């Protein structure tokens, strides 16, 4: 426990030191053309080497919520994290883009490697990490004071990025989120005027606009109807050409439909642990661990 990282208990306290050291540099999205080509010809441009969790532990105050999670997220894949409530899968997800530290008393140990570099290394610019590792939340949370277009491009303003052509970026992101046809005639309408499912896809478009390498999705469909859920799943399948997707879900059919790999988390009273991880088809057909089998066959959880 010697290398536990402690965070101050302010709701927005990005580890103060890292915050102070953060350089006010303004990265630029150099060319949309590169993104476009990358999009149309998957594999023509190498993706990052991916995301790896090494021995990740998490605490909330004294409560040990997550123990020793080792998990790889290879490029071009969707990984689903399943498990009963309170097993630490959402907590794990939030350690992957340093959103974990917003919770007062939160601490973690271990390493999260993005393209081989530990994102918790002192001196790391946390805002850049969150640009590379985007997140979609359980409840759709578009900015209500902004229009649909402003919502999609909000990340550019928030992270002080410059885009060469905002209109192209807007259209591209809405296309990729599967929302373009539904909103192209009312881009100036407010984000709150959309349905729940549309709002969630708006949030996906918003996350994509800053060109993340990884997209974390925390039960993105739990507040949505089946039709919207299906649309989001289709969107996720199309995203893997350019981003690594990690999706937490309570819905095992969803995990089966959408993911290439599945990790099963479980807490037996103590901290949550990663019980088993395997290609999704194996997890659902011949799990190695009897607890996984019990869960995926619906005997508990």
């Amino acid at each position, binding site marked *: 426990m010697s290398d536990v990282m402690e965070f101050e208990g302010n*709701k*927005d306290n990005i580890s103060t030191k890292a915050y102070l050291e953060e350089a006010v540099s303004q990265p630029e999205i150099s060319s949309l053309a590169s993104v476009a080509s990358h999009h149309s010809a998957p594999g023509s441009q190498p993706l990052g080497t991916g995301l790896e969790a090494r021995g990740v532990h998490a605490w909330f105050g004294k409560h040990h919520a997550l123990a020793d999670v080792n998990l790889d997220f290879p490029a071009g894949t969707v990984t689903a994290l399943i498990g009963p409530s309170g097993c630490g899968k959402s907590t794990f997800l939030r350690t992957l883009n340093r*959103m974990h530290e917003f919770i007062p008393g939160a601490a973690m140990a271990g390493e999260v490697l993005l393209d081989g570099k530990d994102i918790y290394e002192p001196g790391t610019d946390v805002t850049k990490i969150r*640009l590379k590792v*985007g997140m979609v939340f359980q409840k759709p949370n578009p900015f209500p004071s902004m229009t649909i277009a402003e919502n999609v491009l*909000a990340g550019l303003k*928030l992270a002080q990025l410059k885009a060469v052509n905002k209109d192209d970026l807007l259209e591209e992101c809405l296309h990729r989120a599967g929302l373009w046809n539904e909103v192209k005639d009312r881009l100036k309408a407010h984000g709150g005027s959309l349905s729940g499912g549309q709002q969630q896809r708006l949030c996906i478009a918003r996350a994509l606009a800053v060109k993340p390498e990884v997209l974390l999705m925390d039960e993105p469909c739990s507040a949505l109807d089946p039709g919207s859920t299906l649309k989001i799943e289709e969107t996720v399948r199309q995203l893997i050409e350019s981003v690594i997707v990690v999706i937490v879900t309570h819905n095992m059919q969803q995990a089966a439909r959408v993911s290439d790999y599945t990790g099963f988390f479980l807490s037996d009273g103590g901290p949550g642990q990663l019980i088993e991880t395997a290609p999704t088809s194996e997890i659902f057909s011949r799990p190695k661990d009897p607890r996984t089998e019990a869960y995926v066959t619906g005997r508990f959880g």
Partner: protein
Amino acid sequence: MSTPTSAPLQSEIPPAREIILTRRFSDRVFRGVVTAGGFVSLVVLGLIALFLASRSIDIFKTFGFHFITGFKWDSGDPDNGIAPVLGIGAMLIGTIVTAVVGLVIALPVSVGMALFLEYYMPIRLKKSLTMVIDLMAAIPSVIFGLWGFFVLMPHAIYWAKLLHKYFGWIPFLDVQAPIFERSPFIAGLVLSIMIIPIVTSISREVFSQVPLDRIQAAYALGATRWTMIKAVVLPFGSSGIAGGAMLGLGRAMGETVAVYLVLNLYFQPNFQVLFSAGGSVASMIVTKFGEAGQLELQGLMAAGLVLFIVTLIINFLSNMIVKRTSRTGN
């Protein structure tokens, strides 16, 4: 007649029942007490308005609308045949000028302080600093007035001279004569310190209600704290800030003793905030009250009524603005 015919529709629908709620005794007692409490404040407010109106009715009969728009205050001299002329126009304008100066200074300070308290300050220190700021509101206004006169004014005169020297080309920062003592600017400074607590505490309250999921959405998009505040907190809190500002304005307009000590009352409208001439209805009432004759006393009551109504309107507006926040907040 063997087949049963359906009865006319009217008879099938029973009349709506009257729902009678029988309240238990203790509930009735409590209701009575609470309702009485609610009414007392209304009744007191109404009686004050009634009292002022009854005392000042003659003034409005005599001077009409001119009482509000006129710039002259002369109790007259019956022996020499000089008719009295009473008008509080200059004082009313002065009240607004001084209060606006106070607000312009207080608003950025308050919003900055509220942001600091809510988003930058370590949580452990937040409570104590909040308490200190609230404590500022508890300091008697005469203390602020004395401090303003003896401590602040010598410095403020220097600041006023600087402002005049470099920004004198802006009409309201010009002066007709280099007299900087007891100006609306200095009164506004003192007022700003008096209304900072109220504006700060309302802004902070609104900022603390910003939905966490929006804050997190911003951070998850790579926002720095400041860009997050610009994109999420300020749009959410804007009408709350406006409401707080209006309440502060109301307080500033009603402030009496502090302004009396640091403002030179002058019965001509003056928009040069650095110049030693200003107006304040409340302070004027205090100044004139001691040696007022019959008619003048009625005039002061009427001035009180006008101030009362203006303040009431401002409070009403601020309530409306704050209410709008809580609706758009969802």
